[in-house]
């Protein structure tokens, strides 16, 4: 294979027949082989870690959440339509049918834009989208129409990333931008009680759900726990804390299971790919606000419920920690994480219009991360100047 690549390589080089596809060729080549480039300036040897490795670790960390999401998609469908006879493979099969198209759309649209813009700029294709493309299907409801998803992905990649210059230059987390785009452009399909259960949209439109003629089970609500965040509300819906931790509740594809997300978190923290400071401080911020709300009577759920519900943990572990859009300084990370957690719960508790605050909290703090860093650095510099003067 190496010989074949070396043989066709000249055609893709500058001046070659397919010279205009240089970045594309390069992307595929460097995907298969670590390039043979050697150091020219500076340090003669380099660490063998590169961004591809970091991104693939990130993707691996998302796999538990994705696998669980596939299962849960089928499981929620089974619950909603009372498909008692469905076994494990039926559930997974239905989940795959729902989730795989989301991935196809996400990767095809996103990577196509990524390749084209790399080609236009003459850069190497950046591997950042591998992670973004992995996250996007996990933070949308399984029933989202595919054309909307395609539009959202295009919006996020073009306006969220490429106009700033690609991975490493963007201000906002592209995956969250895609979700925000869906949320604000098509609120009717991104909120309410019916979107969260897979197969429901089709049922409402055509009167039958995929693969079965069953109607809805009696007493079905379809609402996520966030729609009725109170002791009574959860009791009526029959949702226990264990359901939340295991993730057998309706919600976005990958956000429901605390356990799956924590497995990912362990991988990320141990490999150092994501900052444990941001995760910890975000959890602290969420707990602090959760208990404050509990104390003043905004909710009757103790603070730890806030961590288990909705996309709080998923956002904390996989999206608030995005190294590009989060705070860059170590002190800044503590402040940033705390505010993400606190804001997310604040929106949940005090704004009835938005049951989930995680997306808005992270996007808002992405915006303010450079400001936090600015003050942290200025503070460090002036503290230091004072120290040197007195010494």
């Amino acid at each position, binding site marked *: 294979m190496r010989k074949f690549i070396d043989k066709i390589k000249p055609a893709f080089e500058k001046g070659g027949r397919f010279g205009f596809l240089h970045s594309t060729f390069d992307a595929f080549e460097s995907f298969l082989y670590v*390039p*043979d*480039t050697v150091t020219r300036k*500076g340090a003669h040897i*380099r660490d063998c870690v*590169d961004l591809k490795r*970091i991104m693939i670790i990130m993707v691996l960390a998302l796999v538990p959440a994705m696998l669980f999401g596939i299962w849960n998609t089928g499981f929620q469908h089974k619950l909603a339509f009372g498909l008692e006879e469905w076994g494990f493979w039926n559930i997974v099969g239905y989940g795959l049918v729902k989730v795989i198209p989301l991935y196809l759309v996400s990767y095809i649209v996103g990577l196509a834009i990524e390749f084209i813009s790399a080609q236009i700029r003459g850069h190497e294709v950046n591997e950042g989208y591998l992670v973004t493309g992995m996250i996007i299907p996990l933070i949308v409801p399984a029933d989202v129409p595919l054309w909307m998803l395609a539009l959202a992905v295009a919006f996020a990649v073009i306006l969220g990333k490429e106009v700033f210059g690609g991975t*490493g230059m963007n201000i906002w987390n592209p995956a969250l931008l895609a979700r925000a785009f869906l949320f604000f452009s098509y609120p009717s399909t991104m909120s309410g009680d019916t979107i969260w259960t897979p197969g429901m949209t089709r049922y409402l439109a055509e009167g039958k759900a995929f693969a079965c003629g069953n109607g809805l089970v009696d007493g079905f609500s379809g609402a996520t726990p966030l729609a009725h965040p109170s002791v009574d509300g959860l009791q009526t819906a029959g949702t226990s804390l264990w359901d939340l931790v295991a993730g057998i509740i309706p919600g976005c594809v990958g956000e429901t299971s605390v356990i799956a997300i924590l497995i990912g978190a362990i991988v990320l923290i141990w*490999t150092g790919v994501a900052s444990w400071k941001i995760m910890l401080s975000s959890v602290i911020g969420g707990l602090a606000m959760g208990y404050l709300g509990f104390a003043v009577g905004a909710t009757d759920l103790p603070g730890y419920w806030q961590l288990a519900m909705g996309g709080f943990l998923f956002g904390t572990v996989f999206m608030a920690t995005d190294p590009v859009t989060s705070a860059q300084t170590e002190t800044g990370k503590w402040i940033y994480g705390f505010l993400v957690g606190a804001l997310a719960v604040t929106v949940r508790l005090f704004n009835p219009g938005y049951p989930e605050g995680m997306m808005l909290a992270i996007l808002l703090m992405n915006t303010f991360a450079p400001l936090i860093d600015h003050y942290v650095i200025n503070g*460090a510099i002036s503290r230091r100047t004072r120290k040197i003067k007195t010494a």
Partner: protein
Amino acid sequence: MSNIIELKQGLDIPIAGSAVPKAKKVITPDTIAVKPVDFRGLIPRLLVREGDTLLAGSPVFADKVTPEILFTSPVSGTVSEIVRGEKRKLLEIRIKADKEQKSVDFGAAKPNALDEAGIKEKLLKSGLWPALVQRPYGIIAKPADKPKAIFISAFSTAPLAADLEFTLKDEFENIQTGINVLNRLTKGGVHVSFHRETYSSSPFHKLENIVPHIFGGKHPAGNVGVQISHISPIVKGDVVWTVSLTMTAAIGKLFNTGRYDMTRLVAVTGPEAKEPSYVKGIAGMSMNDIREFCNTDTGIRFISGDVLTGTNVGSDGFLGFFDNQITLVKEGNEHELFGWAKPFRSSQFSASHTYFSWLTPKKKYSLDTNLHGGPRAFVMSDVYSKVLPMDIFPVYLIKACMAGNIDKMEQFGIYEVIEEDLALCEYVCPSKIEIQSILSDGINLMLKEMA
């Protein structure tokens, strides 16, 4: 005794091929080279022509801006070739050595018997003045300056670095004289830093007229710039000088014997070195003289210095003025199938936990020069501070250098660092950014703008 300054951040790269403390060979130089490119920002004025005969210590070129600063020949012989690069930039002056070596006699002298001007003149005439390096910027010290203090690091933590206790074991007297000389050039004292583990066993702790400091930790704890930032950080307007211990010995030799003597023990190291050990060599010696240390004939990079900061001189190149180490590493110009995706990649080392090299902390690796990835924008933010035990923000400093923003460069501590201090940041960078070269451009811009 001063306190131990323990540095937490840092990294000792486990590269194979450290030299055993044994001098295997005495090199009789054939052709050597004096290289103006060893000195930052130097504009040389050539003083010799091809065919001129020189003694060891005869001037070869001078600094165009400060013509008193002379650069002299380490051997007696004939100028055989003057090598110029693009735009006729002076690269090397090659000198064919005589069979019998003769030196200029600069006259032995007790440092205390001379006044400051006399000491400076002796250093300038002999060609040892360029051994004094100024911080900020890492340029040759200006003879008119009176530095705040002079700093010497008595140990090196660089990968496979020569063991100074071995290379300078017979030079104690010379080092002491050198320190006495340096003491005459500053009022702030000569600060010498030792390593915690070797301090009490090191012969150098008996040195007098010094301000001792003790450091502990991994590389770059031995970098003088890192030490200065913990002893007395450089702020705008400060000028301090640094001298390597090897050069201090050479200065001492000048005052003890009256000769410009650049012979030194040089460590031949690296994964591609056969039986890595020391040779008795000289500044400017040719790589041809250590050819028998190479494992193979082709595909080897000859580095004058260490793998992080050294210069790729090529198989016909010459040892740098300051270097006491040659590192031989393999050129990694090979494609590796699915390298980044393999779960295990046991022949490679990574400081991060994304590979499994943390499971084998004692293992030494035959690292090569492969870049292991393509250049990208800055993405990771916390990998750099883990290997930089200084109170600065490396990413912000580098970005300021890229933008050429002088105010920001000042704020972020450009005065405190030179390339070698950020070399480890470059090593660990997953975005493969050429940090040292960007910093270099930044420093050059500062030199131009602040002149």
